[in-house]
């Protein structure tokens, strides 16, 4: 039984051990054993880099198929702001929502107003907070996992305000069960997701509470049917639909969008896991203590760059940016009433259920003295390796291989560079043994004779 849920699975039939995933994994969570890739569950942060890297499509995102809808009496689609980014200002949220209802969902709900409420709630939290800074947005589940696994010391800097999709799903379930006379578990709420990582926050929330969502359907799966279900709208309706958009909500689709729409001055926006790691290292040393807020997304450009989106990521980034600019230019706000948000904030309406817990990588040993000893052994092993990170042993780098050896998960002889040396040593030992053995002297003499004859 696996301790951790992951949003990706390896299809061992399709995997032919080409190691592309192993080399690209930013947390060194993949090994190739007996020609097949294997994920080290505790190290994986569900960033999805391996999905795109695999030439055989052997790494499969675990989103839900459409058929899941049949399990519920009433279904609701909750599109990620990333879906809006696929269309930009040409097709507005209202039209998308209308079309989704034709695809088999009983209802669809636009998240932008809830996103707006959460943006305001974050603003409130930033104002009240007095602990170490900067605070870190939890919008990206991979970033939350990264903090849990690699930066456990920063765990209290994760903002404990729940995600828009969770707050919306919670309220929808309450309202709909009353209105329709159904039990909450008879109502299925599905997130239309731009990335597989959102699945982990649904199946196994970081704060160990429960998710109000029942599943996630990939944007790439729904894009085609959605396009054909789109209806034309009249010009007058377009203007009215535009005026209904909460600008704060549109900010959630791209990196820097929350900062921009809230007009936060002292905030940073980062995307791409490599960049995030650099920034988090700086947070840990205290270098960024004068910054208030960090908006970080594992995918380049934010959710628009998710691996389950359709549009080119720079195009969709541009599309959502243009929509935000239009709303700014037209001075359209349609945002939630901040006084109302403050009231709800005080009633704990927005806070997560539970607490983020660190999930540090297993140390070399539970016992510190033994861990120190193993760390030294790891250094010694590493020194004996060629340090070219060829990967033939099945580990991404010589350093991770040395670690695997001290953890007892690999054997030193798995390194092919050590083999010729071992072989030379063994054959020398063998020949010494032959020299010592008196009974073999006559045989030895015969071998020498035979060789002399040949020459």
């Amino acid at each position, binding site marked *: 039984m696996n301790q951790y849920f992951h949003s990706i699975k390896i299809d061992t039939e399709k995997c032919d051990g080409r190691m592309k995933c192993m080399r690209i994994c930013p947390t060194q969570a993949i090994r190739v054993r007996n020609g097949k890739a294997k994920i080290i569950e505790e190290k994986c942060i569900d960033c999805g880099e391996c999905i795109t890297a695999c030439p055989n499509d052997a790494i499969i995102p675990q989103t839900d198929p459409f058929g899941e809808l049949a399990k519920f009496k009433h279904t609701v689609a909750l599109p990620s702001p990333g879906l809006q980014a696929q269309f930009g200002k040409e097709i507005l949220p209202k039209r998308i929502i209308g079309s989704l209802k034709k695809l088999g969902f009983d209802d669809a709900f636009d998240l932008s107003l809830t996103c707006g409420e959460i943006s305001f709630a974050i603003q409130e939290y930033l104002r009240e907070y007095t602990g170490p800074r900067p605070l870190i947005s939890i919008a990206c589940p991979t970033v939350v996992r990264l903090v849990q696994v*690699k930066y456990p*010391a920063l765990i209290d800097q994760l903002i404990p305000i729940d995600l828009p999709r969770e707050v919306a799903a919670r309220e929808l379930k309450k309202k709909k069960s009353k209105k329709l006379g159904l039990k909450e578990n008879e109502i299925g709420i599905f997130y239309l997701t731009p990335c597989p990582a959102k699945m982990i926050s649904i199946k196994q929330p970081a704060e160990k509470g429960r998710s109000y969502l029942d599943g996630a359907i990939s944007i790439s799966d729904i894009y085609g049917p959605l396009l054909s279900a789109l209806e034309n709208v009249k010009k007058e309706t377009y203007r009215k639909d535009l005026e209904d958009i909460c600008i704060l909500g549109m900010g959630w689709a791209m990196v820097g969008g929350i900062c921009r729409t809230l007009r936060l001055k002292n905030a940073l926006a980062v995307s791409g896991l490599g960049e995030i790691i650099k920034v988090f290292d700086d947070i840990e040393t205290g*270098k960024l203590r004068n910054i208030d807020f960090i908006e970080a997304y594992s995918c380049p450009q934010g959710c628009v760059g998710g691996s389950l989106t359709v549009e080119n990521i720079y195009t969709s980034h541009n599309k959502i940016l243009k929509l935000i600019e239009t709303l700014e230019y037209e001075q359209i706000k349609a945002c939630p009433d901040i006084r109302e948000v403050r009231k709800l904030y005080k009633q704990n309406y927005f806070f997560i259920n539970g607490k983020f817990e660190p999930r540090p990588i297993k140390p070399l040993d*539970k016992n510190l*003295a033994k861990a120190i*000893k193993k760390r030294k052994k790891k250094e010694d092993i590493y020194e004996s390796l060629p340090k070219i990170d060829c990967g033939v042993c099945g580990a991404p780098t010589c350093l991770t291989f040395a670690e695997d050896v001290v953890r007892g998960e690999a054997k030193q002889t798995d390194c092919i560079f050590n083999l010729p040396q071992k072989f030379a040593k063994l054959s020398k030992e063998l020949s010494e043994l032959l020299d010592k053995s008196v009974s073999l002297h006559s045989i030895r003499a015969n071998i020498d004779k035979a060789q002399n004859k040949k020459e």
Partner: protein
Amino acid sequence: MASSEYVLSERFEISCTDFSKAGTISTKIKEILQEIGIESSIIRRTAIASYEAEMNVVMYANSGRIILNITPEKLHLQLEDDGPGIDDIEKAMQEGFSTATDKMREMGFGAGMGLPNIKRNADRFEISSIPGEGTSLDIIFYLNKTGHQ
């Protein structure tokens, strides 16, 4: 004295000419501590202290080093540099006191919080300096809670 196989010792030379590398040793130290399973609150305090100390060397000295010694009981960071030294240590330990140049301040340093910050995060802190020759720091963290006084 712990037997030597239970002592982890690493020596890091601080690159004082390359500002882009500043802070990398603190990151390396953090990774070692994570690997051997040091508690995350101690890792954080160590990261802050080692970063401040490393930056002091980068800013003021031509060369310097950090020596990390870990036993099951304590974590010891030793810093040595060949910088200008400190004339008045008591003054240097005051919050807000700084001899940083305008250039250092432009880069966001020189708030006079470095040494006080190290002291605040460490369990034990000692500093000695000879003007004109250099400064050395001993920064100690206790690893088992009983020794945490």
